[in-house]
């Protein structure tokens, strides 16, 4: 049985690009008086509609500036679309980019709880899964080290371990896997595969067409804020690479 887990209906996202960024009150008033306060409208996404079914491995491809990241932010509820509606059934765990969600002054242990809480987990849940997170990230020797002393690979490992320990209904992966050595990348892919087997819906953004081919069963090709094509992975990847 196919169940729609994410429904995107006619989503349009507009940004107001100001000629110059007006940050201060004085500038604002001066510009207002001079009548120079215009906005340049920029349409990042234009009337996008699609659905994602439970268990889908959904890939986003497109050139830089096509609106992939904006789309992901809307799916993760970080951005509100200017028009249109997004309905999500279930929990979403975004793979936070390296660093965000960590406090550099706190230790790895404290950050696991902080980051876990940000993702909406309870203390009980985190205590139960604490060891598993540490083991996956292979950071047991560094539990009490402030994460500001971590290498970027260690950061990424910890972030990935926390976000995927959750077993959410939907996992959003935004090019984070490019950090870390190949061994860890393999581990990550294995874990994503494992989650896929368990029925997690995955949304993937990558410029690595190989990875999209390996994992996804459905792909959207975004181009200048519009859907250029949507459907079967092989067919779209072939067109994209041409």
């Amino acid at each position, binding site marked *: 049985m196919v169940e729609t887990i994410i429904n995107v209906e006619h989503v349009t996202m507009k*940004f*107001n690009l100001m000629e110059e960024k007006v*940050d*201060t*009150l*004085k500038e*604002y008033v001066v510009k207002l008086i001079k009548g120079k306060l215009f906005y340049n409208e920029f349409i990042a996404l234009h009337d996008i509609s699609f659905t994602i079914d439970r268990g889908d491995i959904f890939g986003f491809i497109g050139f830089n500036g096509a609106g992939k990241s904006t789309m992901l*932010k809307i799916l*993760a*509820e*970080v*951005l*509100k679309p200017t028009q249109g509606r997004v309905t999500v059934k279930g929990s*979403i765990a*975004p793979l*936070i*980019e390296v*660093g*965000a*969600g960590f*406090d550099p*002054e*706190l230790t790895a242990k*404290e950050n696991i*709880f*902080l980051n876990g*809480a*940000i*993702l*909406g*987990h*309870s*203390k009980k849940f985190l205590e139960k899964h604490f060891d598993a997170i540490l083991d996956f990230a292979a950071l047991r020797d560094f539990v009490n080290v402030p994460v500001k002393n971590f290498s970027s690979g260690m950061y990424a490992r910890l972030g990935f371990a926390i976000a995927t320990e959750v077993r959410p209904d939907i996992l959003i992966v935004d090019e984070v896997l490019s950090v870390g050595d190949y061994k860890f990348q393999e581990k990550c892919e294995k874990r994503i595969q494992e989650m896929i087997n368990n029925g997690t819906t995955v949304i993937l953004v990558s410029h690595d067409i190989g990875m999209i081919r390996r994992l996804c069963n459905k792909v959207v090709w975004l181009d200048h804020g519009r859907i250029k094509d949507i459907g079967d992975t092989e067919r779209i990847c072939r067109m994209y690479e041409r």
Partner: protein
Amino acid sequence: MLASLKKILKYKYLLCVLVERDIKTKYRRSVLGVLWSMLNPLLMMIITAMVFSTLFRFAIENYVLYLLVGQVAFTFFAESTNFAMGSILQNGALIKKVYVPKYLFPASRVMSSCVNLLFTVPAIVIMMLYTGQTPTWRIISFIIPLILMLAFCMGVGLILSACVIYFRDIYHLYGVLLTALNYATPIFYPESIVPAQYQWILTINPLYYYVKGFREVVYNDGIPELHTMGICFGIAMVFLVAGILIFRKVQNQFILYI
């Protein structure tokens, strides 16, 4: 309404973690740690007391206690609102990546300042004993002005954190405003030295009522007067409701400006 209440409960733990983080990072790597929360107001009080009891000689009975209470209350306001103001900007990286109810950031900052204030209670008790004013059970009632002031600071913090996103000038402006408020509130001087034609400044200064409330408990060894608490409650509600409304209205725009 019910949905937003559910959301608050879901993120209750995050609020605790954020408050904990603020307190932990504040005193990390310092030898005395949390003791600083106690020492700081005491040392500040000693300095101010030295200056004003020798230079100006205000006719105030038990001047050190009078001063300490006023200072602790004002510091709570200044620290919490200032701290809350930058909270959205400082957590910008996070807000851009994950959905988190944004009010949590200013709210946690105000609450951690409140916890900080609670750490100063021993300092106040020590000062009371030292100056020969034995604390009685009535001191417990300081919780009433404290809760009202917490609501007031929360409101101001929400307004500031939202406005500063659009106009960073507020950062600098607010420092000046705090200094002005510091002088406009009878913290180190008695109310009576304010000339009659300037008394209105006290009546429009919200902090005046909160400081008064705290003094009614700790300094006068009484329970807070109904009249004062009524005004405090009114101010707190006005600012809190205004804060929530403003914050809700603009919170979806934050991400475009940070």
